[in-house]
């Protein structure tokens, strides 16, 4: 017993602080406390960046010489589309970690990401079709990017649907993780086959961006909004994960302590 304790103290300082930090994040009470401290900052940064980005995008930046005022939809549309893809990629990484090392926090984070990713996909599709009406003259074109974004939405809905259909939380999360991984393997194939299908069937369709020559007065608001979207994801993700954690651990000691602390 005693020797054990001494060896423990000897080993501990050797560990890298980052490794220790990640180990600690796997513990539900520690994660709960840490994310609780982080969330207000994430929301605040998100709000500040959004206000700044929207101010630059809606007032400072000029209207496009071809697209007119409707170009401003881009400041919402492009960050949402980027997020929709980034979140699916992150979900695949989280799923891999969750399945291989069986870390419950990763399962929770992965399942908390899915609705946010799906929402960003819907925002990207809806804002894209609203933009398409004045620019292309139609709400929907079977453009390669629109089509693969739509398939991505179906993949998100599949993961969410499977998770909600299984009652036992751990089993539901593991099944959803496996499906997300299978989807991630398929996603590049889907993307390229759709892209190539589009060129095959439609000839040259209208390209979404007017080339890479974007003016800096338009680039800045776009980048700021993109960073703001990432903070939104972080804040929303941690908020959701905390709620999920409380639900799952309802009967555990640490949750009772949390409730006691907050009510007293």
């Amino acid at each position: 017993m005693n020797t054990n304790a001494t060896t423990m103290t000897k080993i501990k300082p050797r560990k890298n602080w980052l490794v220790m930090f990640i180990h600690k994040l796997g513990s539900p009470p520690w994660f709960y406390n840490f994310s609780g401290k982080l969330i207000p900052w994430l929301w605040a940064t998100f709000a500040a960046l959004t206000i700044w980005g929207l101010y630059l995008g809606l007032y400072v930046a000029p209207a496009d010489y071809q697209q007119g005022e409707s170009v401003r939809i881009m400041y919402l549309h492009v960050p949402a589309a980027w997020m929709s893809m980034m979140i699916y990629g992150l979900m695949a990484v989280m799923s891999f970690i969750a399945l291989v090392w069986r870390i419950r926090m990763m399962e929770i984070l992965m399942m908390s990401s899915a609705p946010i990713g799906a929402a960003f996909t819907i925002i990207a599709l809806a804002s894209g079709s609203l933009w398409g009406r004045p620019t292309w003259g139609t709400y929907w074109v079977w453009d390669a990017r629109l089509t693969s974004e739509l398939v991505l939405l179906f993949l998100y809905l599949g993961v969410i649907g499977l998770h909600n259909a299984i009652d036992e939380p751990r089993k539901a999360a593991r099944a959803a993780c496996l499906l997300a991984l299978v989807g991630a393997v398929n996603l590049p194939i889907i993307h390229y086959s759709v892209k190539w299908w589009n060129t095959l069937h439609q000839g040259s369709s209208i390209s979404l961006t007017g080339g890479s020559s974007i003016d800096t007065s338009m680039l800045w608001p776009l980048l700021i909004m993109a960073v703001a979207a990432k903070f939104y994801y972080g804040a929303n993700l941690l908020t959701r994960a905390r709620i999920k954690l409380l639900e799952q651990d309802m009967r555990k000691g640490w949750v009772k302590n949390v409730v006691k602390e907050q009510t007293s």
Partner: protein
Amino acid sequence: MTIEASIDAGGAASTGIEAGAGSMNKAFFALLRRDLLLAFRRRTELLFPVIFLLVVISLFPLGIGPSPQLLARIAPGVIWIAALLATVISLDGLFRSDFEDGTLEQFVLSGHPLTLIALAKIVAHWLVAGLPLVLLSPLLAIWMNLPLDSLGVMIVTLALGTPILSLIGSIGVGLTISLKRGGQLLSLLVFPLYVPILIIATAAVMAASDGLPYTAFLGLLVAGLITSLTLAPFAAAAALKISLS
């Protein structure tokens, strides 16, 4: 003979599976034989996907109109989409009865790799549900007024593509098997994954009917078949393990 065979089939192929020490090949073929035998014991069920396919295809001319040119134009897409639907409908039975009567758990306990067992069941599923679609495709092509030159390509794409459908579908079935109404969810899970196959297969047939080279598309289908044959059984086995836990 029939009674003996059906007992053998019902009793989880007692010779091959439970031998344990026997070779993996033996277990694979014993399971394949058992699944085929069980399928042929229920011949009406065997015909459901085929009849479904015929009914769906016959709805298209009724809905769109009998114009031969229009039908010829949409024929590859229509036949392939009907094949996707027929596959998904038959997929639900892939592991269902074995899961419900506990045979699947016995397979896991048998000591043989679950990947091998999944593969045997997928092969059996394709022979029962996929192959009839391939054999039926000439009739469908005539109904849809598909040019006879591209009929050969149509058959080849179906022969290469339907095994991929069974393989990828088995992952979805493995994930939804423990659910009471898994079938509806299954279609949501697997249809997005079927998108590339649909695109490549129909592109091959369309290229053939336009007189364009199509071998590259067939090459892509072969690549898809090899990839899914090597990866999908592992994913299906992992899915089954999650569902059985």
